[in-house]
């Protein structure tokens, strides 16, 4: 298993990624597109003000995809690079972009699976270099400094109650 690196995404990369996702959502006729990390953290969505519980969606989609990859290994398949769930009203399609990034897309009867898969495959090729660049950049992580650590420590003390039950 490859070592997990950190991921730092800057304004310019996110602007490009958001543009690509908005276009994908439009041309594929899908309801909602999200990028999540393979460790289950959401990065961005299109549309940005989606009502779904994106935190749970990211955790579950990443886990489901990871389990699928393990299934491939059990079956001696090199890899399953996509995951598809078909529902009555909506469908879910998950595809790997890089080692650390997954593309999640939901769509209903207003579009066709083939159309979504076609545009998604194309978009993965566009997104891949953007995130490969992000994975190699670490300098911007300097926002996590000692001041941040001190302030976060105070916030943590304030967030959690002290008392116990029973």
């Amino acid at each position, binding site marked *: 298993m490859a070592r997990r690196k950190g991921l730092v995404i800057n304004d310019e990369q996110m602007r490009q990624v958001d543009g690509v996702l908005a276009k994908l959502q439009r041309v594929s006729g899908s309801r909602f597109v999200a990028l999540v990390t393979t460790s289950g953290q959401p990065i961005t969505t299109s549309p940005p003000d989606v009502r779904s519980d994106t935190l749970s969606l990211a955790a579950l989609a990443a*886990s489901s995809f990871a389990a699928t990859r393990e299934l491939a290994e059990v079956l001696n398949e090199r890899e399953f690079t996509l995951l598809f769930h078909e529902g009555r009203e909506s469908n879910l399609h998950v595809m790997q972009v890089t080692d650390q990034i997954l593309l999640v897309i939901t769509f209903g009867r207003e579009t066709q699976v083939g159309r979504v898969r076609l545009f998604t495959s194309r978009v993965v090729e566009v997104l891949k270099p953007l995130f490969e660049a992000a994975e190699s950049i670490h300098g911007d992580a300097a926002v996590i400094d000692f001041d941040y650590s001190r302030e976060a420590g105070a916030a943590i003390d304030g967030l959690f109650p002290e008392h116990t039950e029973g």
Partner: protein
Amino acid sequence: MALINLAAREINYKIVYYGCGLCGKTTNIQYIHRRVNPATRGRLVSISTEEERTLYFDFLPLSLGTVKGLRTRFHLYTVPGQSFYNASRKLVLQGADGVVFVADSQISRLDENVDSYLNMWDNLLAEGEDPNRLGLVIQMNKRDLSSVFSVTDLTDLLNHTDSPVIEACALTGMGVFETLKTTCKQVIAKSVQP
């Protein structure tokens, strides 16, 4: 290291509760979910068997609010403790910034604790994790029971990294938030860029 989204001004940290079956990992998460301010937490997602044993994981997102202009979140996960679920444990551990090892303090659970502790390190090292960059806290759970090891003995067995040790009773909540606070602070301290 955490996911840092500078464009959205967001940082997400992943913390995983690890330990043998029935040691109290899910009980920790359920207590946190019950007692933390509802405005700061998301939905508790549990993938369990019909007997309410963890099949894949529990997941609880917590928001710390905005710190230095960065929205900071902790994503808490548990692993399934039963020995035959190792493939699932490896998957849940991926990308973890911090780990809480929950030890069952009962004398009768010694073998399971040691096996789980060794298994945790096997899985972390297999993933290529650098232990120095990982926040690690040992929770000695079930301290309310009568037939338990001393903290010193358990520390000798289950803490070769000299990590913080916290006594707990997850059922009543004793030590649960102290464990979480210590882990969150460790995780942030380890992510600081010198």
